[in-house]
């Protein structure tokens, strides 16, 4: 029983830059969210994507706007990499009418149908069959659309994963299952939930190719995504990709993180996907530091505007409350 481990191919500099920009946008966005959360501007819980950006980005770079994704409460990174705008995301985070969901969805339910984002989900695993349904629909309508569903290492133990991947395999649906293995489901370490070393093994029982990839290496993710998405688009059915990664923030803001050591977190911070990519870029780009500075400036500016947009957006009113139930 073997899973295939994908080693990185090289990306050209233009693609590296595209990926870097997206990853940095996600990182800064997530950092801004924590600030806004601390200011008491958000309800509920905030689950940061920090540390996992290469995954959403490597996949996003391989997707068209018309392709579909579903993801989790940790889903703003996926949304940004799929074309969502920061300002509408932030407005949603703050529960304002200009948010993607007019303030009714919130952080756990980011949806942007025009961008093929069929919903972040607050129920572990529940987005998986929805993506499979979108893939079914694409196949039915004979488009070449592909669906990607992102979920965690914990989610792979929900029954519905098993039901959905079996049907995807059975009907050769154009869907890619992306398990972001960040070693914890909430506060429970992976090895207390499964015996597997590699979760990609879970594909075998359904005849689905299982691939392990370093989720902190953009190039590795990009190429695995490229293969799996191309395969799906060509009508050759689903793939299960396990992207090994780590969330460097707590499960949610305020998590006491008593379940892991500072050393462990530090070790993973050294493998930060953005740091790694920067090291690559430094080799490729003579003026990397200038480039970075400019880019950071642009992103900061963009984010400041987005925050302002969100803060100025009005809260929904009682009339909105009763709309869109049926």
């Amino acid at each position, binding site marked *: 029983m073997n899973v295939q481990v994908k080693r990185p191919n090289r990306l050209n500099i233009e693609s590296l830059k595209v990926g870097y920009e997206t990853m940095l946008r996600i990182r800064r966005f997530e950092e801004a969210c924590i600030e806004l959360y601390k200011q008491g501007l958000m309800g509920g819980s905030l689950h940061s994507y920090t540390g996992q950006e290469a995954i959403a980005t490597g996949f996003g770079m391989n997707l068209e706007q018309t392709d*579909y994704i*579903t993801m989790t409460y940790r889903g703003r990174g996926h949304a940004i990499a799929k074309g969502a705008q920061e300002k509408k995301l932030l407005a949603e985070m703050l529960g304002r009418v200009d*948010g*993607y*969901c*007019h*303030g*009714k*969805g919130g952080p756990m*339910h980011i*949806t*942007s*149908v*025009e961008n093929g984002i*069929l*919903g972040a*989900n*607050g*129920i572990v695993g*529940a987005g*998986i*069959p*929805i*993506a*499979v*349904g*979108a*893939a*079914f*629909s*694409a196949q*039915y*309508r004979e488009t070449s659309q592909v*669906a990607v569903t992102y979920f965690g290492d914990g989610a792979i133990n929900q*029954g*519905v994963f098993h*039901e*959905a991947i*079996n*049907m995807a395999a*059975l009907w050769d649906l154009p869907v890619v299952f992306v398990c972001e293995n960040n070693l914890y489901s909430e506060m429970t370490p992976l090895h207390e939930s499964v015996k597997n070393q590699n979760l990609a093994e879970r594909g075998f029982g359904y005849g689905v190719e299982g691939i392990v990839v370093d989720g902190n290496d953009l190039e590795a993710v990009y190429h695995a995504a490229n293969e799996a998405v191309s395969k799906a688009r060509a009508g050759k059915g689903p793939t299960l990709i396990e992207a090994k990664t780590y969330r460097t923030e707590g499960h949610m803001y305020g998590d006491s993180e008593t379940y892991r050591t500072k050393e462990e977190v530090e070790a993973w911070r050294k493998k930060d996907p953005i740091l790694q990519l920067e090291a690559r870029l430094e080799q490729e780009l003579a003026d990397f530091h200038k480039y970075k500075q400019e880019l950071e400036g642009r992103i900061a500016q963009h984010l400041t505007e987005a925050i302002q947009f969100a803060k100025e957006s009005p809260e929904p009113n009682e009339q909105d409350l009763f*709309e*869109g*139930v*049926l």
Partner: protein
Amino acid sequence: MRTITYSEALNEALHEEMQKDGNIVLLGEDIGQYGGVFKVTKNLFEEFGAKRVVDTPISENGFIGMGLGAAMTGLRPVTELMWIDFAMVAMDQIVNQVAKMKYMSGGQVNVPMVIRTQEGAGRGNGAQHSQSLESMFAQVPGLKVVSPSNPYDAKGMLKSAIRDEAPVLFIENKLLYFTKGEVPEQEYTVTLDKASVIRNGEDVTIIANSRMVHFAQEAAEELKQDGISAEVIDLRSISPIDMDTILTSVKKTCRVVLVHEAHRSFGWGAELVARIQKEAFDYLDTPIERVASEDVPFPYSLKLEKEVMPQVQDIVRVVKGM
């Protein structure tokens, strides 16, 4: 007019709508070549092929979720849960996903999806195959919940459900499938959210759904012998509830009996009591009565099962006691 069975009527509805709209796709267990265990999808596989009539594995949470994904992306899936009891394995997708998707997305997307299923006791199927769970789903904002009682409504309401932009839980009854009724050959639909006064009366209003509508009618017939004139309302839609039709009747008769196969406690009868006493308090001459299944799991023994379920005589007795 010609008479056909409830099952045939449903089959015609599916057939006609599928002919009209290529985006309608059926998903469910044994619905293909076999035509469904209650024959509702008979011949559809032959006519529309495996692409549009999809036999699924026994993975209800999975394929209801798929229906949602398909409904969000241009299709109009009609999914089948073979028995409503099995909806329990698909509950997350129904309650947390299908019902909430439109609202959570801020109205970005409609979910034009039908979940067909059937309920009811009376065949000795035991505790896991006899429940009437419509009231559980009626609690969930974002779902329409309907239960036709006869072939005419079955066909007309299923057509409306398929055309509806909202998710509809369409609840059939296992003991009605092979009962017959008049169904015109011409195109028609029945709106989903209107109750129907199927018998006019003066002394008491009996409101029932699904198979219990027939019990209510029989009871009304018997009460007539005793000089009691009962109005019978087929509720049709459990959610939303058509209070206008109900209140008009209640204000005339001033007495109400509610009849359902769901367990008495926490069933839809309670909701109707709450609304009627609120809207027509001064009209009520006597407490509203409920005739419903006892609050015990359905026993296998046919004898006990009969004692659990509402019977015509229970309705008669309750009305006479008012």
